[in-house]
């Protein structure tokens, strides 16, 4: 190897490794790592790649289910949706890049999750986003982040032709310095096209294809540069990655055609830690070695050092393995799609990742050391003695009357209509979208095949579909990590039930603070325990996910935010219930939420109440038992509308049903805040024929009709409700 002196411990520490980890690397290599090796280790042994603080917890999650086709460990998990088709899906965070540059950070977040999905051979058919920012009323910066992050998501998704069909956004002070940008993608594939990422077959060829490699995202690793940069050269180390959806569109079509033609042994996207991570993961999964020739990697600008090429996070790149006799065909397909394809290495039986530059070996590491031997750290979870978060700022007087309270809630940043946001997303491309945002609690997509052909309808004209929902309330998880997480999973399941879908699988992104702090460790372990229990109760497997830790600002950690995405199937999209009231004269029924309380509710937030220490426990079996009858009633077409009672409680849910249908309601609801505005799990507002509502155990509280929402003394014209609900538009001027 090169004669240059190895960088040493000081650099290793600067790259984020501990002294102990450095010593272990020296032991595993039998010598000190050289520059490029240290770069590889520092990235693969980072929390992001190694899951060194979370892997033990993740292993407690249930990953088996009747529909499961591919579980955690691949780029995306997949479930069987019938007809020989599978849906692959995953949610991933791009929090830290988005805090630096929200437009490009969010855009490349979408680009990254799309690649994860087509890396398994699925055509991306839908995107959802889950966003958290500080309080927009107080924070100019939060408004800026919101505007630009939404712009970036739209830019990427709209330009690549994948609809953004749903999502969620919440505003809370603890996200002020650390916004969350999570994106979920669903893809569709014929079952036989699914591919794994394990490299196999010594002498097989590694082909890098897609964009050329630049110095994008080298960021921290730039301390390794052999030449000191002067201030004028600073621009040579850009850490902001720019997304190019046009390049990704070509990459997507190219990848799927390569798979359709059966030309590949394995396929993997390049994401965090670039080539290092992709090559090492592929080798590790296949229990093989790889030789990589960095001088063959096409560069966007000259003069990149080997370590820069190995860790560059330039976007829109994929790595595949093909047998030598197929390489020419692979390159021809690349050329047809105007995508660069370059053989850059070979699979070996050495079990080592060896890096060559102009034929000279410049790095040589056991794959196992890189991928498996990173130390795992036990958490030291401890429940905090004192509240971690200050009470929210008060914006509503405790003495406000019911009407004022309701309009204040509807106009609040967390509850107002998301229309000004989701209208910036193409929700329709690919022609599957049966229920768009605000039409139902879950997005509903027809199950046409990846080429847009819908199978012949069933004997009664049924049109099979899938449904998807994404949820997670940080404030409720902060109040009670276990119950709050259970509630998030139940809310997803309730959303699916509203459209008649049965859950098939779940993905999650665990956004937490620094796990080395005992109280964050406690939030994380309690939350994962809740996630596992709720999944087991629902018999829904976790098919994959992502962990984003160290989300902290100067004032402490973010609200612990497990974001849950759930995918389900329904036999007939025509029956997917809307949330809007449909018909004058329909009866309105309420199934009150389980464990409802005002603690950690939106109302308490507006009133500036501190978070409670714990939420009322939710009876999980009872909650799960509520879902099936709702689902069956929807499938049977017995209801006109179904909406789950979530943030803001029952009265807010009813107002939403009125607004969506432009129909008033005349109801009787107990004259107390808990009944009106209390929040819990698996509550519903239904409309339809009275007997159907009663059969579901709903309390019938009134009828649809009129131009106002009337509840006892309270009477608010629809126009007034609509004006309050439209408050978010002010943030997008």
């Amino acid at each position: 190897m090169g004669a240059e002196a190895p960088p040493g411990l000081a650099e290793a520490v600067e790259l984020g490794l501990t002294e102990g980890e450095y010593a272990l690397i020296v032991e595993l290599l039998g010598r000190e790592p050289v520059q490029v090796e240290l770069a590889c280790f520092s990235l693969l042994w980072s929390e992001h790649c190694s899951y060194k603080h979370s892997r033990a917890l993740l292993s407690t999650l249930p990953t088996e289910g009747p529909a499961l086709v591919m579980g955690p460990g691949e780029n995306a998990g997949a479930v069987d949706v019938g007809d020989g088709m599978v849906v692959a899906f995953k949610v991933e965070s791009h929090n830290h890049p988005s805090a630096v540059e929200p437009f490009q950070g969010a855009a490349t977040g979408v680009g990254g999750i799309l690649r994860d999905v087509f890396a398994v051979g699925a055509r991306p058919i839908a995107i959802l986003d889950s966003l958290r920012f500080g309080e927009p009323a107080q924070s100019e910066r939060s408004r800026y982040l919101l505007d630009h992050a939404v712009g970036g998501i739209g830019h990427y998704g709209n330009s690549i032709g994948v609809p953004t069909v749903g999502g969620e956004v919440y505003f809370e002070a603890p996200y002020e310095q650390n916004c969350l940008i999570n994106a979920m993608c669903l893809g569709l594939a014929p079952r036989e096209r699914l591919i794994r990422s394990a490299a196999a077959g010594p002498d097989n060829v590694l082909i890098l294809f897609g964009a050329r490699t630049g110095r994008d995202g080298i960021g921290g690793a730039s301390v390794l540069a052999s030449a000191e940069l002067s201030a004028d050269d600073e621009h040579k180390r850009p850490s902001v990655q720019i997304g190019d959806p046009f390049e990704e569109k070509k990459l997507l079509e190219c990848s799927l055609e390569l798979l359709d033609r059966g030309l590949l042994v394995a396929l993997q996207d390049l994401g965090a830690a670039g080539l290092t991570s992709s090559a090492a993961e592929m080798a590790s999964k296949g229990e093989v070695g790889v030789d990589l020739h960095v001088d063959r990697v096409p560069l966007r600008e000259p003069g990149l050092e080997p370590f820069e090429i190995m860790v560059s996070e330039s976007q829109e790149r994929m790595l595949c393995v093909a047998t030598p006799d197929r390489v020419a065909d692979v390159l021809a397909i690349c050329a047809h799609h105007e995508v660069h394809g370059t053989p850059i290495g070979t699979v070996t039986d050495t079990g080592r990742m060896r890096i060559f530059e102009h034929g000279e070996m410049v790095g040589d590491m056991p794959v196992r050391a890189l991928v498996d031997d990173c130390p795992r750290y036990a958490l030291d979870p401890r429940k905090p003695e004192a509240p971690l978060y200050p009470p929210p700022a008060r914006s509503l007087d405790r003495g406000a009357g019911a009407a004022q309270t309701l309009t204040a809630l509807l106009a609040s940043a967390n509850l107002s209509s998301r229309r000004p946001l989701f209208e910036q997303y193409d929700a329709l491309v690919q022609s599957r979208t049966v229920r768009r945002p605000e039409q139902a609690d879950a997005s509903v997509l027809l199950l046409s095949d990846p080429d847009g052909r819908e199978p012949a309808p069933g004997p009664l004209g049924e049109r099979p579909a899938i449904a998807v929902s994404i949820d997670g309330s940080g404030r409720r998880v902060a109040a009670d990590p276990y119950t709050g997480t259970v509630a998030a999973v139940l809310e997803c399941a309730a959303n699916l039930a509203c459209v008649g879908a049965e859950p098939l699988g779940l993905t999650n992104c665990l956004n937490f603070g620094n796990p080395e702090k005992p109280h964050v460790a406690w939030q994380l372990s309690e939350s994962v325990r809740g996630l596992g229990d709720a999944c087991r109760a629902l018999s829904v497997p976790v098919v994959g996910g992502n962990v984003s830790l160290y989300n902290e600002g100067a004032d402490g950690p973010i609200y612990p935010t497990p974001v849950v995405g759930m995918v389900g199937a329904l036999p007939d999209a025509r029956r997917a219930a809307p949330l809007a009231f449909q018909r004058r004269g329909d009866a309105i029924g309420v199934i009150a939420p389980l464990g409802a309380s005002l603690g950690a509710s939106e109302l308490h937030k507006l009133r500036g109440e501190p978070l409670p220490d714990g939420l009322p426990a939710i009876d999980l079996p009872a909650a799960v038992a509520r879902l099936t009858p709702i689902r069956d009633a929807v499938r049977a077409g017995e209801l006109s509308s179904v909406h789950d009672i979530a943030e803001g409680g029952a009265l807010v849910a009813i107002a939403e049903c009125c607004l969506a249908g432009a129909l008033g309601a005349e109801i009787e609801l107990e004259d107390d805040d808990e009944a009106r505005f209390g929040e819990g799990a698996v509550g519903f507002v239904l409309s339809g024929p009275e007997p159907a509502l009663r059969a579901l155990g709903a309390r019938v509280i009134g009828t649809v009709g009129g131009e106002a929402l009337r509840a006892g003394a309270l009477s608010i014209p629809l126009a007034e409700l609509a004006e309050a609900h439209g408050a978010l538009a002010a943030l997008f001027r």
Partner: protein
Amino acid sequence: MRFGIVRFPGSCDEVDALRAAERVGDATLLWHTERDLKGADAIIVPGGFSYGDYLRCGAIARFAPVMEAVAEHAREGGLVLGICNGFQVLCEAGLLPGALLPNTGVRFLCRQVDVQVENASTPFTWRCERRDTLSIPVKHTTGRYYAPEEVLDDLEAHRRIVLRYAPGHNPNGSSRDVAGVCSEQGNVMGLMPHPEHAVDPLTGSDDGLRLLESMASAARVVGHH
């Protein structure tokens, strides 16, 4: 009766257009490098972001080899429909008057809008009645129709404004609420709304189908081949 749907790198709605066209006829995709229209009777230049749309929407696509054949087809009287990005491409190519500018709201906008049929005797609308209202979605950032006043006057005088946004539905600030215009001969039309996304009540509306049906039967009559 056969539709040819142009596919540029970066097209997004070409498969939607293909499946929509298949509801009323035969349809095939035409790759941007091809000069052969594969016997298509009517051409659709679909939506999306051709070549990334990085310079100016439609500016690069209009130079694609396939567009030479499309222009030739139009000169011979064949039907050409440009949807969204396809409308931009046809304007850039000079097959339609005017240009599309950024929405007054600056942002991308995806919304179901009502459009009114102003001229029901074009090959694209003859299955509609004048003043019919169609519910069709728009989704674009650059859809504000612009042409100099005298051009707009002329378009109006010759009934070449085929579709207008219904009152209160103009999503982008288009001059005189123009949603779709046609060529002097009436065989080339461009519109910002997406009729291929309005072919099934389950996904929102099937009003767009009437435009495609009009084309299918008109192409059969004209039968320029």
